[in-house]
């Protein structure tokens, strides 16, 4: 805020202090607890699905992760389509946003929302409206981490084994 203060007049600054006083605080601790519970629950469900694939469908643990993610994405899209996911999210906060279900929700909600503008420019163009930045900065971050990893472990250069 300090850098912003300069462009405001004293009257504006005084008002902002007054307004701040009336701003209800986000219940951070309770939100953290809710996020922990819901996020954990989603992961437990994911684990259960993975176990099912291992025990009943003959996947090994590594191979079972792909169909598990697909099932979670499917469930998230169904809940988004039914108009339930956003209600869960208002309660759960980061708990429903961080797992893969949250990512599926950003894409499917944008696709549903912009369906009326057509399949190409609506669904195709706007599906990544919210998910796009996550992908862009996720890839950039992974690239930077990759470079750092390489500098710290130069012997891995050349393909590894």
């Amino acid at each position, binding site marked *: 805020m300090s850098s912003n203060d300069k462009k405001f007049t004293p009257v504006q600054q005084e008002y*902002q202090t007054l*307004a701040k006083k009336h*701003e209800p*605080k986000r219940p951070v601790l309770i939100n953290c607890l809710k996020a922990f519970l819901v996020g954990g629950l989603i992961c437990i469900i994911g684990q259960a699905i993975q176990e099912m694939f291992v025990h009943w469908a003959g996947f090994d643990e590594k191979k079972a992760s792909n169909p598990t993610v697909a099932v979670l994405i499917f469930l998230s899209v169904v809940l988004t389509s039914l108009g339930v996911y*956003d209600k869960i*999210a208002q309660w759960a906060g*980061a708990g429903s946003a961080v797992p893969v279900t*949250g990512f599926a929700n950003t894409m499917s909600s944008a696709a549903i*929302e912009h369906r009326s503008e057509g399949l190409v420019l609506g669904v195709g163009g706007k599906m990544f409206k919210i998910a796009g930045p996550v992908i862009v900065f996720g890839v950039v971050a992974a690239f930077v981490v990759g470079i750092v990893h390489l500098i710290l472990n130069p012997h891995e250069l050349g393909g590894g084994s």
Partner: protein
Amino acid sequence: MLKGHQSWIFENNPVIAGTAAIVGPFEGQGPLAHDFDIVHGDLRLGQDSWEKAERTLLEEAANLAIEKAGITKESINFLIGGDLMNQIISSTFAARTLQIPYIGVFGACSTSMESLALAANLVNSGSAKYVMSSACSHNATAEKQFRYPTEYGSQKPPTAQYSVTGAGVSVLTQHGEGPYVTSATMGRVVDMGITDPFNMGAAMAPAAVDTIQAHFRDLQIEPGYYDLIVTGDLSKVGYAIANELFDKHKFPIHQTVYKDCGMMMYDYEKQTVQAGGSGCGCSATVTYGHLLRRMREKELNRILVVATGALLSPISYQQGETIPCIAHAVSIENEVRKL
């Protein structure tokens, strides 16, 4: 007639001949449900897009207001209206259907009273015999344009407001029994440097206070003149701030009852609306539905409606601009005002 610096007195007493207030399903679960003419059960109103649903809402309200005024569509000289969509498409597209000569206005959520004030002025000056004023908003179109997709799971902060799905329309004419539109004060744009689009109540409160104080300064009356003063959509946060500002400016708001449409629309206990309601449709439907019903039943005789608008765009706030705000006040009375 100009009175003071920014107010009009309507000495020829324009009459509200008919009104209509139509809302969506969520508003129908609120405490004012019985005061609305129609409560739709389907948020889409059977249309294939949210935008079409919003314009259908407005068309229905317009037709109902004409019917209640006991006139035909052809006798209306002008339609003055606006909404929150880019290029006010809901109003213009409804005007295309209605085929009434149309004057589009934009004052964000203050459009309800901006259009009513201008309509009263046209009727008062003899520029028109019948004028329709309208304002509408739809929760899903507003969310889509200003925030996120409706089904996107983001947690809204406690300062956020819920855009009302509703359309409010009034038909004004020159002669008849009240309620009369007696005066209006047009506000100036006030920007106190709030940048958070999830805290519009705080952004708009100073504009509301500025216009209310200008109204009483211009008209040289006291707040006690009115039975009720309502602001448009300040909701919990903005309402508390407005009260503190009145206190600070030693403005005697305690002489009257002061409420906010955004806090009247929903049941805070049962409905998840954070700070309260917002949108053009909020003050329009509360005024034309709830408040005018109470005026007709003589529970209220003199009211001042101060619709508040946050004049931001999705681009302006992403570029870090502050939120300019405005408020327009219109007084409605059962008796002709004696000057």
